[in-house]
């Protein structure tokens, strides 16, 4: 009898715990506590490492055979398919928003800028990692050329790919925007960026997880806030499934 009592007590506590956890997670207190914990991680990462500290870079022989494509692996439009065949001759990247000198860049313009080549690790939120060599101009070079205004607080990446009927987008803050390893990559392992990895252009945000590295880039915008962009949570996965905005954890 005592045994059964004990066992049902444990089962009862477990059920209570599960129900309580679900209730806590959906409560306002729970949400604000989750947000606070995420912010403490971001603040302590930056305090411990410094704002400019680099993600590790690897030697050519450390690269993985490929870099897995995940999420969107293509763009479902006739324009994209045609551009893919012709090497993206008519693809344009605009740099706008809170800037004094908006830019419209072709791939040739982007390749003509000073390049940063880095062999870095891509970590997916799911848990896997791949290593590849990425090349492209630093985002800071584009932002300086566009003469970003002081009131800009975030950089918004707009993308051509659509998932679940929503266009992909992402936002990062100015610390990551001006980080030396934050580049607009057009090449992977010495070749033009493959379709599954975001051809022709993708962001590399090396100290955060893969979903921040927006692919199929069409526009970069300097914004004061992302509250009014799409779902208001600062990114496609953030809006769709409540992923953490700070993906450095």
């Amino acid at each position, binding site marked *: 009898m005592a045994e059964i009592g*004990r066992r049902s007590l444990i089962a009862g506590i477990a059920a209570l*715990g*599960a129900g309580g*956890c*679900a209730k806590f*997670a959906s409560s306002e207190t729970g949400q604000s*506590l*989750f947000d606070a*914990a*995420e912010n*403490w*991680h*971001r603040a302590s*990462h930056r305090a*411990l*490492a*410094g704002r400019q*500290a*680099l*993600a*590790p870079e*690897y030697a050519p022989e*450390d690269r*993985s*055979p490929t870099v*897995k494509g995940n999420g969107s692996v293509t763009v479902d439009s006739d324009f994209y398919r045609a551009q893919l065949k012709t090497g993206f001759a008519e693809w344009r990247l605009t740099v706008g928003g809170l800037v004094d000198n908006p830019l419209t860049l072709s791939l040739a313009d982007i390749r003509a800028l000073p390049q940063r080549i880095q062999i870095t*690790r891509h*970590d*997916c*939120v*799911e*848990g*896997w*990692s*791949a*290593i590849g060599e990425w090349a492209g101009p630093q985002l800071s070079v584009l932002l300086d050329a566009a003469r970003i205004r002081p009131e800009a607080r975030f950089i918004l990446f707009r993308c051509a790919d659509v998932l679940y009927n929503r266009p992909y987008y992402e936002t990062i803050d100015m610390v990551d925007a001006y980080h030396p390893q934050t580049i607009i990559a057009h090449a992977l392992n010495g070749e033009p960026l493959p379709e599954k990895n975001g051809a022709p252009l993708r962001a590399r945000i*090396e*100290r*955060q*997880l893969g979903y921040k590295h927006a692919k199929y880039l069409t526009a970069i915008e300097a914004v004061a806030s992302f509250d009014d962009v799409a779902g208001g949570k600062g990114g496609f*996965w953030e809006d769709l*499934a*409540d*992923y*953490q905005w*700070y*993906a*450095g*954890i």
Partner: protein
Amino acid sequence: MIRHALSTRAWHWVNAAAFIVLFMSGLNISNAHRYLYWGDYGYDPADAWLKVMRFPGWATLPQHYNLAAARDWHILAAWPFALGLLFIWAAMLANGHFRRDLMTRRSDWTPAGVLASLRSHSPGGTANTGHGYNPAQRILYGLVLGVLLPVMVFTGLAISPGFEPAAPWLVDLLGGRQSARSLHFLAAWGIFGFFVIHAVLALVQWRLIEGMVFGARRQEGQADG
């Protein structure tokens, strides 16, 4: 004199709650990519050293697959878990709990010492009648507090890409990010194994749980272990 210091009791229960949340949300996170690798990279199941089972909903937090929600829990509970470990080590070193009760002596590691300890736990044995930990307890608690719990914290930090630039040597020391992830998984199961044994033994002797809640008095005339 109280058998369990307030610092020990407070940490014990905070840590227990944090571990349960971390373990169950961790199983949910594991379901996102059920393969473990060694080295810096790993994404191809063909390269995995272990294909992990899919953990059922009743074992995970939340009780259905939700990577974002599981990560919310994991990211939150990591704070009391890591800071709590720092706290209890400081407290144990300061109040002598470590030196008195946990630090092993050379004789603890001899087969005779462990055997005698196990014998005292068999029915009719003398274990738990007084104060002081026996060699098996000292080794096991030492392993959990000194190895498994710290490994959990360090491997967790290592697989965080935002923390990595603060201590890239940590990831190298652990053999790369995917190795750190594998070790994170293995240490979690090590702690879970301890948790099960520990909880079963405590449930067999209800009074021990009482002691960990209220402190309990030490018996008169018992020498400190």
